[in-house]
């Protein structure tokens, strides 16, 4: 599948056509039966049946046509036609079967699940898969970004159709707000992952900054100075992380976890000295800080919190900076191949430490912003970011092995995660079910673009 084959064989084999038609008809029949069972009007049923059949057969033909043109020229003779078809289209067929079965099972088990909106959602899902398998091949470089955007728009349209108020301004605003927190927290994780490292101290620094900032404000330090102090300390902690883990890059996971524990404990000790309430910090958050991150904040009179604008500007700077500046290119050079990067006099230590420093800085910034959002200090505020930043980076398509990806991908990953989680909240799932489905969905999403080649192609 990796090499590009020029030969075009657009004609579909007979077995493939028959299988496709049969699957399409079966799907349509299921739709019709359920439509009647639910007592929908006949026009709707006919309409959806035609739509189902048409979309499915088109998709089938399109997908398989692409596969044939991409597939390696098979050895003549020996293998029978059916087996050949099977071998070539196996993943696509598996995927379709799984989705259809899941749909069938859900329709059978949940009362009222089968309605027009859900059928349309199913079609959108199928279209996404078809498009990603076909058009996605045109984007060799940014395939994950393309797929991410497809998933994002698909999810969003499904959500907008199925959930009342999903596409309303309020909901979009709140989704963007939480996405900006996660996005700012993931800056460091992305940069560190580009070098092949991991930073698990982010959630602890977030919590420590959250508590520490309120503590400083409570001590009477001017809030602007306190924020600058906290950000500087965050960057300093990042530098320490970088120096400590530089020689232990394979164990960066554990080193940063250890420093994270230490930071969290140390800040709590500091804040509880001379305080009757161990670990609890009280103080008033200045209004400008709450305005920065609260739901009802305003940016120069516009009705959205400035943190969204900050995140947007940050993303722009990072994406452009990593693409066009020397620093950005050197970062990729180091991530891809340390040895060759060293040969052109790029200092590995400097970049490694710098990325961890940036990571610490933005973690502290997230902590400060979260303080503005919530209005009260809490050491555990960053806990959910422990694996969420990792998930955003991974879903976006940045490789944890380094050298591939970028912050633009992470932005898409963050948005996908955020839309998905508010979709799951919207359909009324509890937190635990959300997490369950979240976990189950990360795998196929990543599998759409981040599959590693077979071992025999690596030799």
């Amino acid at each position, binding site marked *: 599948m990796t090499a590009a084959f020029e030969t075009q064989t657009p004609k579909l084999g007979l077995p493939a056509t028959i299988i496709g038609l049969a699957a399409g008809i079966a799907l349509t029949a299921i739709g019709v039966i359920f439509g009647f069972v639910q007592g929908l009007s006949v026009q709707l049923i006919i309409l959806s049946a035609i739509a189902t059949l048409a979309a499915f057969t088109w998709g089938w033909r399109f997908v398989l046509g692409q596969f044939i043109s991409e597939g390696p020229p098979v050895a003549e003779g020996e293998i029978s036609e059916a087996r050949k078809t099977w071998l070539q289209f196996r993943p696509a067929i598996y995927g379709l079967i799984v989705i259809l079965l899941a749909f069938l099972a859900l329709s059978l088990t949940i009362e009222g699940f089968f309605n027009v909106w859900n059928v349309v959602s199913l079609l959108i899902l199928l279209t996404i898969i078809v498009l990603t398998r076909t058009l996605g091949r045109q984007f060799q470089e940014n395939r994950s970004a393309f797929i991410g955007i497809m998933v994002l728009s698909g999810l969003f349209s499904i959500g907008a159709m199925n959930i009342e108020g999903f596409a309303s301004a309020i909901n979009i605003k709140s989704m963007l707000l939480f996405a900006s927190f996660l996005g700012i927290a993931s800056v460091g994780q992305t940069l560190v992952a580009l070098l092949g490292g991991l930073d698990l101290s982010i959630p602890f620094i977030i919590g420590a900054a959250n508590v520490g900032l309120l503590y400083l404000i409570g001590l009477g330090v001017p809030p602007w100075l306190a924020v600058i102090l906290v950000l500087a300390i965050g960057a300093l902690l990042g530098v320490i992380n970088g120096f400590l883990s530089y020689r232990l890059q394979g164990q960066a996971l554990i080193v940063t976890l250890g420093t994270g524990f230490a930071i969290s404990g140390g800040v709590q000790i500091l804040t509880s000295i001379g305080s009757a309430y*161990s670990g609890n910090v009280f103080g008033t958050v200045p209004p400008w800080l709450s305005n920065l991150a609260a739901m009802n904040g305003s940016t120069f009179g516009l009705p959205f919190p400035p943190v969204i604008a900050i995140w947007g500007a940050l993303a722009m700077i990072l994406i452009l900076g990593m693409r066009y500046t020397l620093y950005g290119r050197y970062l990729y050079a180091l991530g891809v191949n340390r040895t060759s990067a060293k040969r052109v006099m790029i200092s590995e230590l400097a970049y490694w430490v710098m990325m961890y420093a940036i990571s610490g800085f933005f973690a502290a910034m997230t902590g400060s912003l979260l303080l503005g959002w919530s209005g009260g200090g809490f050491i555990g505020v960053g806990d959910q970011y422990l694996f969420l930043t990792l998930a955003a980076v991974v879903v976006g398509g940045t490789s*944890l092995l380094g050298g591939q990806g970028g912050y633009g991908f992470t932005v898409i990953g963050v948005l996908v995660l955020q839309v998905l989680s508010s979709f799951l909240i919207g359909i009324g799932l509890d937190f635990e079910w959300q*997490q369950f489905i979240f976990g189950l969905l990360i795998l196929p999403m990543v599998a759409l673009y981040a599959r590693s080649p077979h071992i025999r192609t690596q030799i």
Partner: protein
Amino acid sequence: MSDVTANIAIGAETKEAEPAQGGRANPFLLVPITLFFGLLGLAVLRSPSLMTSNGIGSAIIVATPLVLATYALMASVIAGRGTVDLSIGPLIGFVNVTLIQLHGAGILENPFAVFGYAIAVGALYQFLFALVVIYIRVQPIIVSLSGYLALSGINLVILPRPGGLAPQWMSEWGLGTTIFSPVLLILVLATIGWLLFTQTAFFTHLRLMGSDERAAYTSGVPIYLVRIGAHLISGCFAGLAAITFTALISSGDPSQGTTYTLIAVTALVLGGASLAGGRGGAFGSFLGAVNLYLITFVLATFNFGAVQSFVTSLAYGTILVASLLLTLLIPFIQRHIRNFSPVLYFVSLSVIALGVILHATNDYQNRAPAETPTPQAFVRLEPIPPQNLYVAPLEVPAVGEEEKALRSFAAPFVLSSILLVVIAVFVRVAVSQSDRKTIAPAVVVVISALVLLGAYMMRQANVETPPARPALQEAPV
């Protein structure tokens, strides 16, 4: 990567499997061994009640799930590709809560059924994991992240809050009143099972695949089968870990996922395994897990009042980082000491530690039991619930003036006797090593003699001064 490749040939198993390999021994055990004895000595000095039958019993009960979870991680980490199974904690939790719920429904009663169920679920999950890694070809860490989220979600669905009752026969295991509990048996059997496994060709294939998958593939190793096998073994250990965890808390707890995952990964790395694959052993993993237990134990013996849990967290993190930084010294040590033998090191340190233990448990208590009734001297250590591992303060014997005087009086004697023993052992070993390649028999004899002696002394101490007041203070959590 270079250190990994350099150590492919080095035995991952050093102590039990092939003792005294001389210069080819695994230098990565240096740090865990040092840390182990340092912590052990400190723990015994801080709280001599650790070295009673109760103390050791409860230590075994608390540490065993962690050790087994570390074994489970170890099996899959050796398989390479960065297979750090983040989902190990939620998997243990999953087996735990389903076990409790099924038992509550009256289905799982029989011990054999419980064991079979736990091991089967663990193995099945890991089997699926391996299939996904092999055929969908996604990075294992992503699969494990996915499994982590999915399992910790479903755990909360199955059992929304901690509760339920473990089977009757199992809840008695968790008391930790004796050393020889079934939990110890599980631990020993699991360790022996792993050690037997390291003797097979399959294990060689596994290590080869872990350190260089392409080389393994080109030399004809069936890498798919090997990977599936590694995951199945990992799943069995995970099932056993879940059983001992259930015995420890005697109920179900859906939210232990994060804690256990983080602790087990940490223990694995502390034990000298390489997350890149190809290196790791039972002895190191055991030491790593026990070290983590001892760290929390020692920290719990200090009383910091309101900031207890913060200090614990700070010290925990610092020790982690420091011990990892110590591994950086290994190349320098190797340069100067060519024939570093972990066995010899272990023996010499264990002699010293035994001396400390004997000093702490016998010296001043035996001599002056009457003058110092020491109300808190013997407080039975409850099995610490894992959620309290970082926070629960233990009772510490108050050190009176007389005891202090006694300690300073006894210290020279103890130290000189320890010194004599150490010198004797060193001389013996040096003599035997001069003409023979292996010192294994001597080492085994010495260790077992010392252990027997220590056990005998402890029993004596126990009998002479029975627990004065086994009252327990509730842990203020």
